[in-house]
């Protein structure tokens, strides 16, 4: 047997010397990166929405996705109902949960220092994780396939239907969200609240309702994320939201937190970085590389790629 050269030389070995790195493999890896990046982008959009309005890092966001995945599991696997109903209930359930969390945990703290809110968010996150473990147990639950879609093969590249759906849904969500924020009255209210909460209130905007609406929108994105995640990885565990949430948070900060296109760019960057690192045989380093990317961006451009430069008061 030929001895395996170490990782980076191995990349060179298989790709350049043995010419195994054909176009098909590269294209498939690009598609893998797009799929993973789209999921991160969608979750990062949820972070960015909430942060943009009340400057709260909603650490429970990843765990809302976890609840969404469990809802799909209950509806399809336990109750044996229609997958479409599972998708609808996951999204509605996540939206409801997001609003409920805002009403119960965050609304009483609107006037409190931001640190209290942040700590409450961490508390909510732990509550959801441990609650899920208590109710569902620590073992992974298998979310059945929503639709039995075959993989297509185009010129030797195997295009999984799930990957394409994920990419398309994320693109549509981004466009809808941009229109919602930029072109509608509610969007205008959201932007006003984010500029100056007190002034917005004086102008007759119902601040609490606007914030709740933002949470609902953010959590709908989490619900869609839950469905896409379950489609791609098919398992729900109580702790699945932690790493997903952290990576998406990194994506949001990378792109410039508060910025919608920034979140998408950040998500895709993180997705591609992970796939690239794994593809060259360094997969053990994939998490480290993502966080290294974050450190570099924070040092070079603290507001992120598309973030507005601002004076920070924390």
């Amino acid at each position, binding site marked *: 047997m030929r001895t*395996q050269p170490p990782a980076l030389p191995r990349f060179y070995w298989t790709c350049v010397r043995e010419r195994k790195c*054909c176009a098909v493999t590269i294209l498939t890896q690009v598609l*893998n990166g797009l799929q*993973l990046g789209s999921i991160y982008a969608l979750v990062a959009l949820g972070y960015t929405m909430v942060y943009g309005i009340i400057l709260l890092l909603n650490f429970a966001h990843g765990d809302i996705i976890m609840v969404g995945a469990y809802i799909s599991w209950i509806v399809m696997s336990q109750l044996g109902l229609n997958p479409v109903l599972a998708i609808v209930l996951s999204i509605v359930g996540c939206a409801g949960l997001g609003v409920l969390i805002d009403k119960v945990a965050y609304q009483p703290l609107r006037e409190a220092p931001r640190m209290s809110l942040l700590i409450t968010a961490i508390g909510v996150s732990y509550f959801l994780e441990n609650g899920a473990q208590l109710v569902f147990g620590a073992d992974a639950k298998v979310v059945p396939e929503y639709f039995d879609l075959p993989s297509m093969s185009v010129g030797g590249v*195997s295009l999984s239907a799930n990957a394409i759906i994920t990419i398309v849904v994320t693109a549509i969500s981004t466009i809808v969200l941009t229109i919602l924020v930029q072109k509608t009255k509610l969007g205008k209210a959201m932007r006003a609240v984010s500029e100056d909460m007190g002034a917005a209130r004086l102008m007759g905007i119902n601040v609490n309702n606007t914030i709740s609406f933002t949470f609902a929108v953010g959590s709908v994105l989490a619900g869609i994320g839950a469905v896409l995640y379950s489609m*791609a990885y098919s398992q729900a565990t109580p702790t699945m939201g932690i790493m997903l949430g952290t990576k998406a948070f990194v994506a949001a900060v990378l792109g410039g937190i508060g910025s919608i296109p920034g979140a998408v760019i950040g998500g895709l960057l993180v997705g591609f970085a992970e796939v*690239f690192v*794994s*593809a060259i045989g360094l*997969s053990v380093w994939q998490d480290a590389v993502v966080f290294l990317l974050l450190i570099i961006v924070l040092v070079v451009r603290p507001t992120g790629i598309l973030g507005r430069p601002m004076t920070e008061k924390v």
Partner: protein
Amino acid sequence: MNTNISRRNFVKAGAVAGMGLGLAACGGNSGSSDGSSSDTIKIGLMGPYTGDVAQYGLACRYGAELYVKQVNSNGGINGKQIELDTQDEKGDATEAVNVYNKLVEDGVVGIIGDVTSTPTIAVAQASVKDNMPCVTPSATAADVISYGKNYFRACITDPYQGKLMADFAADQGYKTVGVIYNQGGDYEQGVADAFIEEAGKKGVTVSDSEGYPSGATDFNSQLTNIIATNPDAIFSPNYYQDDGKIVTQARKLGYTGVFMGADGWSNIVGGDEEYASAEDLEGCYYDCSFVSENEDEKVQDFIKAYKDEYNDTPSNFCALGYDAAMILLNAIETVEKDGKATYGSDDYKQAIVDAVASGTANGVTGDISYSGTGDPVKSTLIITFKGGAQEVFKTVEGK
């Protein structure tokens, strides 16, 4: 919430204290009866029965207790009943050594245990000076059997499984095999390393070997690399939750070949959840020592007896506990029949150690014997999937 928990803890503490008193009382009683006669044979049974790894300890214990009960109801050994001295080590190495010393004081002539690797290593080190015959049902770490000749195990080791599956791949005529494994796990790494080494010796080319970090959910990029090398089979020696995702994702990437795994696959189907679809698993293989679908008569008898006793289906650990008890009691029977050594003497213990080393046990996890070390020479099952059900593909004799 708070008051509830503290009340529950209080009750638990009370129960533990009560049990402690009960055990102490038992110890006292048996101590006094010991001196008067040796119409019983006393052996120790230890493992974690509370704490994080209690599930494994309890499973081994139930299996071992079932075997001892069966022997006793058949008249015991040489007319003597077997008395179990059962001690909880809570999954802790220090506690395990304390428990071991307690068992020595109680005068046991052999021990079934310990269960998990780290405490077992501590007990193995402590047991050398007493030359105490010990059989661990389930500790797979290489070190366990390296301290003295008195320690044996009933289970096969991680490298053994890797080697076995590489030989199987060669037998199946696979020319190239890809490997994907969790680089953050001792078990996965141990099996994969041994597989790759043996595959090289058998002329099976490992076309690509890809690792992934613990907790990963996306295996697409590693699988894309492996599939690009067009292997005859992919070896995935991980735990079933990861294996399920790996198989499913590989099928979506268009891979239609065979998957092979190790005993971490044991719960991939047949439990509460199906971690991969019947269609995706069709014709895949993994090795293990115990599966309830095994139609072998002694296995089915064991499963029935276990169900009658505990109203539950036995796991792999229950079966290993049962076999560990069988190995030790078979050896004691040999020594008792021989009748040369006095019960409880150093010669008696040495005779048991020799009898384990040279004896055999037709266990429910395979036919077990030893060849000079504490590692068993043991037959292993290759399991395959047909229409969503598992079945035994073949039995590989131990070597």
